C-alpha cells in the first residue's frame, strides 16, 4: 500500500475528516465486488446537504481503483473540459485510512431518478417552463 503514499496528505486521516464535521456522516456499503469501496457522505454542521464525499477502499484492489480514479479526475481538471466540468466531482484532498488512500471530492447535487419514477404525482416537483 505504500505505492499510494504520494497521493496522501501527510498525517490527515479519514477519522480527522469525520471529526471535523462533528460525526455528521452517512456511510454507504453497497459494493460487494473485489473493487470494494465504501462511500462516506459528509455534512458540515449547519448544512442540510453534503459538501464532501469520501471513497474508502476496503481491499488493495479497491485502493488501486481509488488511486486510478483520483488520477483520472486530476487529469480531467488539468485538461479544462469547459462547462461539462461542473458535472464531474473535483478532488478536494486525499486522506488515509488504515494505510490506504481515501479520495475526497466535492458532493455534486443530483437526484435519484429511479425513485422519482415511483413517486406519486402529488410528490413530484412541477416541471419548469
Amino acid at each position, binding site marked *: 500500500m505504500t505505492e499510494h503514499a504520494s497521493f496522501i496528505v501527510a498525517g490527515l*486521516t*479519514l*477519522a480527522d475528516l*469525520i471529526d471535523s464535521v*462533528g*460525526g*455528521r*456522516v*452517512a*456511510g*454507504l*456499503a*453497497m459494493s460487494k465486488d473485489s473493487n*470494494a469501496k*465504501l462511500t*462516506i*457522505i459528509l*455534512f458540515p454542521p449547519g*448544512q*442540510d*446537504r*453534503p459538501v464532501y464525499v469520501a471513497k*474508502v477502499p*476496503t481491499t488493495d484492489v479497491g485502493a488501486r481503483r481509488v488511486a486510478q480514479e483520483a488520477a483520472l479526475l486530476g487529469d480531467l481538471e488539468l485538461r479544462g473540459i469547459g462547462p461539462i466540468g461542473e458535472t464531474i466531482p473535483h478532488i478536494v484532498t486525499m486522506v488515509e*485510512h*488504515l494505510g490506504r488512500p481515501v479520495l475526497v471530492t466535492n458532493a455534486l447535487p*443530483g*437526484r*435519484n431518478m*429511479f*425513485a422519482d419514477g*415511483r*413517486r406519486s404525482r402529488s*410528490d413530484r416537483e412541477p416541471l419548469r417552463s
Partner: protein
Amino acid sequence: MRSGPPVEDGVWDVLFPTVSLWINARWSLRARQLERQLAASLRRGDVAVVMPPWAAVRSATDATDLASVRHYIALPSRRRPKVVASSHPEVLRYVSDKVLTVPPGAGPVSGLLLAGLLRLLRHRTAWDLAAAASGGGVVLIRRPG
C-alpha cells in the same frame, strides 16, 4: 448485557476506527452500568453502545460528562449494515430522499411496497422504529484523550 463487535464491521471500522469496546445494552444503559463496563475493560479507546435511539437519548446523556456522544442508525441491521447514518435530521432526510432507492429488478408489487417504505423513512420516527426493530441503533462514546 453482552459485549462483542459487529459481524461485518467494514462500515464500522471506517466510521468508528477508535472503538475498542462494543456493548450491547438492549433497551437501556445507565451511566453507572456504563462506568462499570469501562472500568472492567482494560482496552483503551472509544466505546460503541448498541441500543434503540430513544433509549440512547435517555441514558447516554447521563454519560456526557465522560466524553462526547454521537448517535447513529444502521439499516437494514447493525450486523450487516448497508447504510449507517448519523441521527441528525438533515442527514436522515438526505439519505431517505436522495440515496435510498428501490433496487432495479424489483417487481411491481414489491417495488411499490419498497417505495412506500422509503417514503416512510422521510420521518425520523420511522428511522427510530427501524433501528429498534433491527438492533441498528448505535451510540458512539468518545472517551477523553
